[in-house]
């Protein structure tokens, strides 16, 4: 019996196995293969959006570059050594890339070398035909036309694996904004890529559109962006900061638009394009002394120094512990507690009212004011928190919410900070007296300084600082008006003092003919740890200003590291920027030359050269 029906049984069993196997192959959706090698999907990239400055000057465009592509299946034996010399890729690296692409797929094109310039392309085109399976494919990369504002504009680069994992839009080899505006407005600048589908044959040749192009997706055009940056002013400010470390922030107070944001030393966006980009990036990254990738205007947290006195004056007025006519006597300083003396550069026996206190930057005056603010309340905690809330209403101690991804919060100490340190209320106004003159625990970034100067210039409010002016010629209105906790009339008093600072006070060098400048200098003590030893370095030079004082059009904050006193570097630089912006003409050529040519390099080298060095010379 078995023999008779052997064939029948075997046929039925085989058919059954086949059907089961076919069911697993054909009926489970994520079954065997997801990708259909017969359809070639080609991404159509819209050209990346252009970037303009506020006056319509083109800052960032695109330029053609070429990628060297390999289709491993089409190659014939070739001399890798010769190819490596030809395309200037290390032999081992070249071999690695080729084997990677072979492992990826022998049929799908892979990139062997990216960003080959037009010139190199012209040279290669004549030779690459000798290598079957290789060809050059046109691509588009960024062209940073102006070598300025790189810290704002940022740069693009090839998308990393992490970025691909984070957002599935991206595929290997695509470009993405890595830093600055390029990163923040990535979605607007890149547009949305489209897709074209082609039917291929097994030789990887396209034999026509797939399904009559019905599945194709049109790309969505990228958007052009106009920045609030004034590239001419930016260029000028960058030239003033040559050979100095620090930052400059210029804001239009009536809108919060950032006209200029300088960080020095900096990089150029073009360093991230073309041949040397990897090396350049490493070099920039490894420069731990100059830290060119670190944006000092947004990320550097300094003690603010004397400009903080303006805010203390405003808080004093608001809390009604002082008024315009309150006077304090300074004896080249004062004892703020038993055996605790705070020095001041004002002479013994100077009697100052508020305006004089401001323009002479009297430490004693503001220390006493600060004391009165805190002592007004029952506990120092209550007083300090009141004070801190006023400070925070100026945007201090938190991110400002501008449209770049980098930044620091700064720090405004509150009661819980000292309570933790000293115990509940076992401290007082004297313990925290340094806050009054912008030393101590307070930390601010240059953009925060510019922002509170902007609030003063506006007499009580500020607009969130931002870089975006227009998207595709449509004004990106940002009416984010934020009020401070200080009444309007109090501002007029301190602004009077700030005008005096430039007129007859600490920053007379910042005076501009015909323009009323209001400002405040700062000379910031700072320390560094060298071999676990706290060392004092030359003071930072800082200055905030706005002009014209009556109806401000521009606010400037300048911070020069180790520049010594405020009017030595920061005030002249701010003043030149104001003059440039308001008059477009510099009358004080000598001052301009001194600033442009002045260098602080020797000052910066001091702590690296030997252990004993003199400061503030």
């Amino acid at each position, binding site marked *: 019996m078995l023999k008779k029906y*052997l064939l029948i049984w075997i*046929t039925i069993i085989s058919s059954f196995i086949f059907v089961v196997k076919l069911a697993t192959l054909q009926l489970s959706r994520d079954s065997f*293969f997801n990708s259909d*090698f017969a359809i070639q999907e080609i991404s159509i990239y819209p050209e990346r959006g252009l970037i303009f400055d506020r006056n319509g000057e083109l800052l960032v465009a695109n330029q053609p570059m070429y990628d060297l592509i390999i289709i491993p299946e089409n190659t014939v034996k070739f001399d890798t050594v010769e190819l490596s010399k030809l395309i200037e890729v290390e032999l081992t690296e070249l071999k690695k890339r080729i084997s990677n692409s072979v492992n990826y797929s022998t049929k799908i094109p892979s990139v062997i070398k990216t960003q080959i310039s037009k010139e190199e392309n012209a040279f290669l085109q004549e030779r690459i035909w000798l290598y079957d399976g290789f060809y050059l494919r046109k691509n588009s990369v960024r062209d940073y036309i102006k070598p300025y504002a790189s810290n704002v504009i940022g740069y693009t680069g090839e998308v990393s694996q992490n970025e691909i994992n984070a957002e599935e839009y991206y595929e290997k080899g695509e470009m993405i904004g890595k830093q600055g505006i390029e990163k923040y407005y990535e979605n607007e600048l890149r547009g949305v890529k489209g897709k074209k589908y082609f039917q291929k044959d097994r030789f990887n040749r396209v034999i026509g559109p797939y399904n009559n192009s019905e599945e194709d997706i049109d790309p969505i055009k990228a958007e052009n962006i106009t920045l609030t940056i004034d590239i001419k002013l930016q260029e000028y400010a960058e030239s003033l900061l040559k050979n100095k470390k620090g930052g400059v922030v210029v804001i239009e107070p009536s809108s919060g638009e950032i006209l200029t944001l300088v960080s020095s030393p900096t990089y150029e966006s073009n360093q991230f394009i073309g041949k040397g980009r990897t090396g350049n990036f490493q070099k920039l990254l490894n420069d731990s002394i100059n830290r060119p990738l670190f944006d000092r205007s947004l990320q550097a947290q300094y003690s603010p120094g004397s400009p903080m006195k303006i805010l203390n004056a405003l808080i004093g007025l608001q809390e009604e512990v002082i008024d315009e006519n309150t006077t304090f006597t300074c004896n080249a300083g004062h004892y703020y507690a038993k055996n605790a003396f705070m020095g001041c550069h004002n002479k013994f026996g100077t009697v100052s009212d508020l305006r004089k206190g401001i323009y002479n930057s009297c430490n004693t005056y503001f220390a006493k004011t600060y004391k009165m603010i805190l002592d007004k309340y029952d506990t120092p905690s209550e007083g300090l928190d009141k004070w801190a809330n006023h400070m925070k209403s100026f945007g201090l101690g938190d991110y400002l919410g501008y449209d770049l991804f980098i930044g620091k919060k700064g720090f405004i100490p509150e009661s819980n900070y000292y309570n933790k340190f000293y115990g509940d209320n076992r401290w007082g106004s004297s313990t925290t007296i340094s806050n009054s003159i912008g030393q101590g625990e307070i930390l601010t970034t240059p953009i925060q300084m510019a922002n509170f100067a902007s609030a003063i210039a506006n007499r009580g409010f500020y607009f969130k600082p931002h870089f975006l002016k227009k998207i595709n010629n449509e004004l990106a209105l940002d009416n984010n008006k934020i009020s401070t906790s200080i009444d309007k009339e109090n501002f007029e008093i301190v602004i009077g003092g700030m005008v005096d600072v430039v007129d007859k006070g600490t920053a007379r060098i910042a005076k501009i003919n015909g323009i009323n400048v209001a400002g405040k200098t700062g000379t910031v003590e700072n320390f560094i740890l060298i071999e676990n030893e706290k060392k004092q370095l030359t003071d930072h030079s800082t200055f905030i200003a706005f002009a014209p004082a009556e109806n401000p059009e521009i606010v400037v904050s300048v911070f020069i590291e180790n520049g010594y006193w405020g009017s030595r570097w920061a005030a002249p630089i701010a003043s030149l920027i104001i003059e440039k912006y308001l008059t477009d003409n510099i009358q004080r050529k000598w001052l301009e030359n001194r600033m442009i040519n002045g260098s602080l390099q020797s000052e910066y080298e001091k702590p690296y050269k030997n252990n004993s060095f003199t400061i503030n010379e």
Partner: protein
Amino acid sequence: MNSFNILKYDLISLFSYIILVTFGIINIYSSSYNESFTSIFDYSTIVGKQIIFLVISLVTFIIIIFTKNKFFDSIAPILYFISIALLLSLFIFGVERGGAKSWYLIGPISFQPTELAKLSTALFLAKFLSIIQTDLNKSRDIFIVGIIILTPIALITFQPDPGSALVFLAFIFPVLREGLDLRFFYFGLIIFSTLILTLIFDFTVSSIILFAIFIIIYMYNQRNRFKISVLKYFLPFIILISVSFSTNYLFENVLEQRHRDRINLIIGKEVDDRGIGYNTNQSKIAISNGGLFGAGFLEGTQTKGNFVPRQHTDYIFSTIGEEWGFVGTLFTILFFTLLITRISIRAEKQVNHFKRIYCNCFASLLFIHFFINIGMAIGLVPSIGIPLPYISYGGSSLLIFSVMFFIYLNIDSSRLKED
């Protein structure tokens, strides 16, 4: 000559045949389709050629249907020797295609005598086994049967076309059916298992496994007090060890790398979807692409792109899978199963030995093609280049399988009376 009465023929099988052939033409059309296509009767196109062979086949239908079935009995030896002669003279006059000298070129028509050998061996085997004196318990007759089957196998293997030669192993079914001791079959199975064992592991490991198995059997028998001499364990053990050893040797030294690769792929020792496993892999991609209902006629992307090599011939099943989906593949398998089992079942009703054996030979041939071809397309069997009867492109194959089917129809229609 009798008056023609359609009802006496096996209409269900005839229906299956027509369905399969039509479906074949459709899929050949699709897998060789391109936009610049002119007429389907154009001889220069693949599908045109296939249709011409179909027409020729239908002509043979008329002839065969009206032939007295005694004729097949008597022509069998002559046809067999002609086939052998044709296979032999291939070495001189044959034309090489795809690495094997297995074609005759006569004008525009090329012919593969291997296909004819399938028919003639089936007929001759049926003839020999149906001789009343033949006794498959006699070693002489077993030897002659071996010669009949192994001669074409040897000749075809040396073309070299080992895939087609393998097909002749199908005749083991009718030979078993006609009385060959089943122990031959079991012994074959054990040897085959040993072979696979050796390929998956290696000689040393296989020997250890075999040794362990024999020890276990020995101990089992000891416990149950079966008295069997040690020699009876020892002899089969030695035989299997030597099979394992020679498999190892053959595999490493006689087979070419491509054969080794194909075998390794199937037994799972190697995974390579882009190189040696490309055919099978592409075929699987195409088939799985089809889903339940398939991409539709002429819509298969893998098919259009010619991704599956030899798609209109050996891998036609992948076109069916992609364009007609699970429904199409199920349909194809069901019709083949129907045809094979029906022929086999009806063969058993034959009183005439020759007719029964022939029908069984034919069913076995169909089965082995069906099994290897579809098994290969879905990756269950090593890549062996043989066509799917009635469906694959190939004039010789279509013609010969049609003739075999018509002979079956003829024989079957007269099963109750000898004429």
